[in-house]
Each structure stands twice: as structure tokens, then as C-alpha cells.
């Protein structure tokens, strides 16, 4: 199956078997390893990308279903909210091993884009799909609050 995939502003003409999840097209075909595999069944969020600005689990998104939509991965994430999130993440060293953090950041940016001033319940709702075995949840929560304040300032 020949498709054109738009990732981070670049068009890729590729040949892939139908049904291949977007995750593996990104990682193996396009060599973009920032989006991670954690479970393959949309339970852990490590594979979170944006498709036309909306968070999606790439591990269960068949690549052909993306169509002409814009895919944004951690490597191409940019903008005011992304800068605030990255800055907040670095200020207090949110990540430990860092493996889940691409997904966490993608999810956090989505959360702040839809809910600029999230309370604890909003953060739980927006982020509970993203597992962290190092359990950096306390810092993720704090960094989201800090980023929200930074953006609104």
C-alpha cells in the first residue's frame, strides 16, 4: 500500500502493509525513535502523538487511517505550550529514565491546549492514560501546573 504521510511538516511517500500501526511506521520506517513502544494496546501512552493536534495512541492507529492529517511527534513538537512544558519539565527534572516522557509531554501539551488552567481532576483525566514506572507523577503534576502558569503569564 502506497501512502503519503505528513509528519512534523514533512511529507513522506512510503510503501507499507495495510494495518501497520503508525507507531512502527514512525520508528522503523522513518527512523523517528522518539515515540516509544510500551505495551502495544494503548494502555500505557508511551506512543502518544498528535494527529491534527489531537492526542492519539500510535500503537493502535493504523497508518492508513491517518490519511492527509498532520502527525506531530515529540521530535517536531513546538509552540508556546510545548516550550512551556519542556521548560517546566527541565526546571524540576521531571524525567528519571525518560522512556515514557515523550508520551507524557505529548499528553501534557494536549491537556494544556484544551484546558489552559487544569485542576487536579483535569490533570488526572488528561494524564492517567500515561504510565510511568519510575513514578514521576508528582513532578509531572507540578510541572503541568508550572507550565500552565507560565503560559498564562
Amino acid at each position: 500500500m502506497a501512502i503519503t504521510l505528513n509528519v512534523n511538516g514533512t511529507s513522506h511517500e512510503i510503501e507499507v502493509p495495510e494495518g501497520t500501526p503508525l507507531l512502527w511506521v514512525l520508528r522503523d520506517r522513518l527512523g523517528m525513535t522518539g515515540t516509544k513502544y510500551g505495551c502495544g494496546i494503548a494502555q500505557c501512552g508511551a506512543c502518544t502523538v498528535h494527529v491534527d493536534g489531537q492526542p492519539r495512541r500510535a500503537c493502535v492507529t493504523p497508518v492508513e487511517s491517518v490519511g492527509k492529517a498532520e502527525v506531530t511527534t515529540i521530535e517536531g513538537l513546538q509552540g508556546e505550550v510545548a516550550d512551556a512544558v519542556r521548560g517546566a519539565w527541565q526546571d524540576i527534572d521531571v524525567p528519571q529514565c525518560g522512556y515514557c516522557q515523550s508520551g507524557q509531554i505529548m499528553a501534557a501539551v494536549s491537556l494544556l491546549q484544551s484546558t489552559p488552567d487544569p485542576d487536579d481532576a483535569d490533570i488526572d483525566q488528561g494524564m492517567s492514560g500515561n504510565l510511568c514506572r519510575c513514578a514521576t507523577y508528582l513532578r509531572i503534576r507540578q510541572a503541568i501546573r508550572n507550565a500552565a502558569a507560565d503560559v498564562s503569564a
Partner: protein
Amino acid sequence: MFMKEAIMQAGNMQEAIPVDALSSDADGAPVNVSRRGFIAGLGAGALVIGFSLRSGRALADVTAGGLETVKGGDATPSLFIAIESDGSVKLTCHRSEMGQQVWTSMAQILADELEADWSRLSIVQAIGDPRYGDQNTDGSRSVRWNFHRLRVAGAAMRTMLERAAAAQWGVDAGDCRGERHLVRGPGGRTAGYGELAAAAAAQDVPAESEVGLKERAQWRFIGKDVPSLTVPRIVRGEGTFGIDVRLPDMLVAVVARPPQVFGRVRSVDDQAALKVPGVVGTVTLPALEPPAMFKALGGVAVVAEDTWAAMQGRQALQVQWEAGPNAGYDSDSFAETIAATAREPGDVRRSRGDVDAALEGAAKRIEADYYVPHLSQSPMEPPAATARWTGGRVECWACVQAPQATRAAVAEACGVPEEDVTINVTWLGGGFGRKSKPDFVVEAALIAREIDRPVKVTWTREDEVRHGYYHSVSAQHMEGALDQDGRCTAFLHRTVFPPIPSTFQAGAEQPSWGELRLGASDNPFAVPNLRLETGNAPAHVRIGWLRSVANIYHAFAIQSFAAELAHAAGRDQKDYLLELIGPPRRVDPRDEGAEYDNYGDPMDEYPIDTGRLANVVREVAALSGWGRSLKKGQGLGIAAHRSFLSYVATVVEVEVDADGRLTIPGVWSVIDAGTVVNTRHVTAQVEGGTLYGLSNTLYGAITAKNGAIEQSNFPSWRLMRMNESPRAMEVKIVASNAPPGGVGEPPTPPAGPALTNAIFAATGLRIRRLPIFTNDSGDRLPVDTLS
């Protein structure tokens, strides 16, 4: 002979810097290697210092007495620090980076004594090689075993730069001072480290006695809140984990493994698998014979052009399995078996006074049985390894915690000498002990040789959950005697679990001293009569180690039972715990017949100091507001435990509603780890280690039926999520000049009992069997069963 290091930079894999053979100094002092010839990859004017990591640390897998006797190595120094002519500084990190921020802490220690500009420093990850000394990144020892050596190396280099400047200026070396990447001399003269590197390379390395180490008050980096070297890359999705490795011409393999340990392939039909687009072949791996060690589990690998094709190929594979000797393993019945064993007299491993007489004469006798199931480490990155053969030599890239053990395992499995095996270490997306076992690297090497192309073996989450080296399952039987005044006069602890030695020695069933020293033999309670016994248990899965290891179930039993004794005595839990800990003193379990090695460090340097344990209890009580009035359904629980030479006390606050739903409004934890290198990262480890323990206590259970693991992925194997995590947590680091203790693991053991003690305080429900919530408990505590 060349030694290669792999450089990890911004997601690119760069080929190694070859360095000439380095020779040692007899007693392991730093050696100037710059003059030993051209060092390709570094500039011609570089100063390179190599220093030995030999020390007096006796370890099970490193012969005491130095590198001369380490398997595979000659007595050459190891870690190198290079200062290039442009002033950039490279430090080899011989420990694996898995989120504990070891790159950063090693760099801080060096940079302080060297007086380096932090921004000029970069890390070179070491390959697995015995000349590095210990590279097993487990046991919470990276800082404590490298603190002094790195300081000496940094100070020696600074001294050489000062002497070089002094020689150039014709002044006294004592009047020259290295400061922030410059040597300052009399009359305002300065010279940069880079411009001095070549001249410094001509110097002799000063002896340790000649170099001045800083006073604590002069530390710029050590003990400070220094940001991570890895985080700036992580937030951009950069950095190469094991699963991210890509080589030209590489194939990907996904392996169908026997459901039972020591099961084997009876027959395989790969016709359908071979028809899956992208699949290039299948490889049957050798069947695993006991003992499991780090060998491959066996099974059938599907090899394909990419990961998805390999996964699809495996799904299409038809394999008939022979279940083998562990087919009868059933976790429910095994739980009953070990509980029954724990109720029978066992082998005495430590004894003080006369426990039996004291129990007989007790005013009150308390008894309790505790159970902790198997757990899986479950780093978010499953195991993954890449192997490439060139002639009879193999290079591997893998997320491993123990690169030397990896090298030995690959060499053994492939029948090649270790010199022909190179293990490159990537970043680890979490370890927690799983990646200390390199069975997955062995798989990659075997398959790559068969296929004759580079192969990356990727484990799925199901593979990681089903084919682990699990935290052992345990039954703990406790008995206590109280006198008329409620004081504890006898404490019996009987611990039963399939031991880690079973993985390395077929048929090993007795809990080893190495596991008892993890929280059982070193119980510091000041009880006049105390006894530790063990009961045997056979292993039917591969038993391994998981963050803090046997401390988990030992602390769960001891700290829960301490709370039960307090309750029986009608006393406050915290006060009673302090009474059990007793007056400040040093405890030596060897005095009472226990085999004890104090985590590999001398008892006089790192005593079991009950004063420090009591101190963290008092501190955490103050921090958490212990004793404040609480509403119905709210409760506080406390637990305190020494492990890996550090002391941690934790208070958990729970709130349980009328339906039995649990929330954790707050957690407080105080750690005394002696001298700490990085305050923010120590705090992060206390947060993460505590939540790791809470997650396992709340939900963690790996169970077997017919020898096969019942869980497969999230959520049947469940991890704590954001919405289930504590709403707030406060950590305090005790200020201390004591030698550095461990940090990565000590927070985990007290977490579980603090939580269950809190639940008891809130509801009267005593939980002795974990996990708190099983998959069919609907996340409700059975509060309606309480009167």
C-alpha cells in the same frame, strides 16, 4: 589490544574511540596514559588520565585483591577522563544510566575536585569490561563505591594542570590554583585547562597523599541541586535506548517462548509466519536446561524486516509446547504450601536469648502470617538487544545493567571467548533489576549468528510480563510476646521463599544469607529474645531481583507486625516503633550467628546505627504531623527500614470512604543516606522508589497456573496511574557527613507497610496478604465486613 567505548550523542550511535592499552600502577593509583601513544579520536594535545577502580570492596563476583585477578582483565586502569586541547572534558561512566541520574552524579563528583566548568563536561558510556571493576548497576552503590575515587582522580588532574601552569610561568605550583576551568597564578595570570592539557600530559600523576581534596564547604556541585545531564535530551525525544538501536541491514526478531520455564518446543509450523509480508525466516533457539542462569529461554524467533512484521509473524506461528517440569506450578496452592512451611519450625539463622521461653511466659502472644506475591520489574522499556557478527566476533548494543555479566553470558552461549564479545550499553528505559539479567542479549547474539545479519530482538510487554526473573513469592510467619506492660519480650520471624540461588543452581531451595541480609538478619529491634528462621521453597519460575529485593517482604512483615504489636499493647504505632528500635547503639547480626556482609561495605564505616533509624522516624513523624486529629476514614501509617546502608522512614495518609474506596492524600518520607551528591535527584528517587513500592503493594501480583504466568499486559498486570498516586508528597533529606549510602532502593521497602498500617488505622482492616486490590476486587476495600 584496543579498548572501545561507545559515545551516545543525541540519538546517534557513534563508533568507539580506540585507546591504546593502558597500564596500571601496582596499587591502582591514577596513571597518566596520555604519553602512551596516539589516542585516535581525541586531539593530539589531550590529557588523559586513567584510574583504577580497584578497591577493598569484596564482592561475590569480583575477587578481592585487585584487577590482576579479575576474570578476563589484566591489571590496567579503567575509567578515563580526557581533557582535550579545546578544554572539553569527557568522563567515562561505567555505570548504567536508568533514570537514577548516575551520569550526573559521577560528573558532579569529578567536576568538583577538578574544578571543571560544568558546561564543558560530557559523558562517554563504558562498554562491559572487567578492567572497570564493578559495573553491576544494582545494589544502590554507584555513588558510594565511586565517591572517593572520582574525587581523587579529579583532584589529581587539577594538580597536574596547576603544576603545568607553574612550570610554564616559572612560579611555585603552590601559588597556582585551578578554578572553574582556569589555572590562576600569581600576578593575575590565567591559563585555560585546554591550553594546558598537553603540558599537563607530560606530568607524573601525583600520589593520593599529594592531592588536596576540598572541604565540604568548598563543594560547588556535590550536595547541590544540579540539573540532570540527560533531561534536556529526553524532552526532545532524543537519546538512544536499547529498543531504539538501528544498524544498517538490521532485521528485527520477536520470539515465541515456552509458557513454562524449562518448557520446550515439541513442534513448530512456520508456514503461515513465513507468508507474513516482511518476515524473512524463523530460528529455533536451544531449549533451556536447568539452571536457568542468564541463558535464553528457548522457543522460536520470527525474524523480519521490521518490528510489526516480526510481531505479526509470531502471531501466525504455530508452536506445540512441551510444558516441562514446572507445569504443575499453581500460585494459589503454592501460597498455601509456603504458608504451611512458615508455620513449622525452620532453620535458625540468627538467635538472641530464648524466644520459646519468652513466648511461653508471655502475658500476650501475637501471631501473624504475611504473604507477598511474585512481582515483575516492568520497566517501561521492555528488554531489547541488538547483535552484529563480524567473522567470529560479536558486538551487542543493549539496555543492560550488568555489561560484564552480559559479555560472559553471550560468550558462553555462543561458545566464543569473551575477548570476541563487545557489549555496548545504551540508556535504559528503566531497569529495576530486570535488565541485570541479559537473557535477551544472548537471544540477539544467537539469532544474529544464525541469520548472518544484524538482529534486534524486541520483547513485547507480554513477553516482559510472562517471561521474567520475578521478585520471589514469600510467606512470613511472625510471633511476638508482650509482657504485662505491653513491652515486646520476644520476636520470632520465619521467612519462606524460593531463593535467588535457584536461578543459578538447580534445586536450590533454602533462602540464602545474601537474601536474609536484606532486611531479615539485620532487624535492629531491641527485643531481649529474637530469632530468625527460614523454611525452604522450590522455584518454578526464574527468581530474580527487583528494586530492593528481599527487603520488600521482610520490611512488609516486620513493619506490619510492629504495628500489630503496638495495637495489641494499646500504644501509638510510632512510639511503639521507637521503643522496638530501642536506644541508640550499633547492632551486629554476626554476634548472634547471622551471616552478614553489610551490603559489601565494612561495618565500622557503615554500622547498623539504631540512632539514625530512630531519627528518621522522629523526623517523619514531625514532617507528617503525626498525632494530628483525623476524620473518620482517615488514617496514618508509619514504617521505617534500613537497607543498602541508608535509613528511610515513611508515613502514608489514607482516606477510605464508606464504599471502601481508597485515596492517598499525602506521603512523607525522610531519608538518611549520609553524604548525598545531588539533592534533587535523591528527592526524586525517594519519590519514585516510594511510589514503586506503593504500586506493587496496591496492585502487584504475578501468578501462575499450570506453570504459565496468568498476567499478560496492563491491566491484568497493573501499575499505579496518575489518578491513583498520592496527591502530595514531601521528602526530607537528613543533613549528614556520614559516608554515602544507597538511594535508589531504600525508599521502596517501607512504602508498602506504611500504606497497610495506614489502612488499618483508618478502617481497622488488617491487610497481611498482598496485593491490596486484586483484579476482581473492584478497587474496594471490604470495609463492610468490619463490625
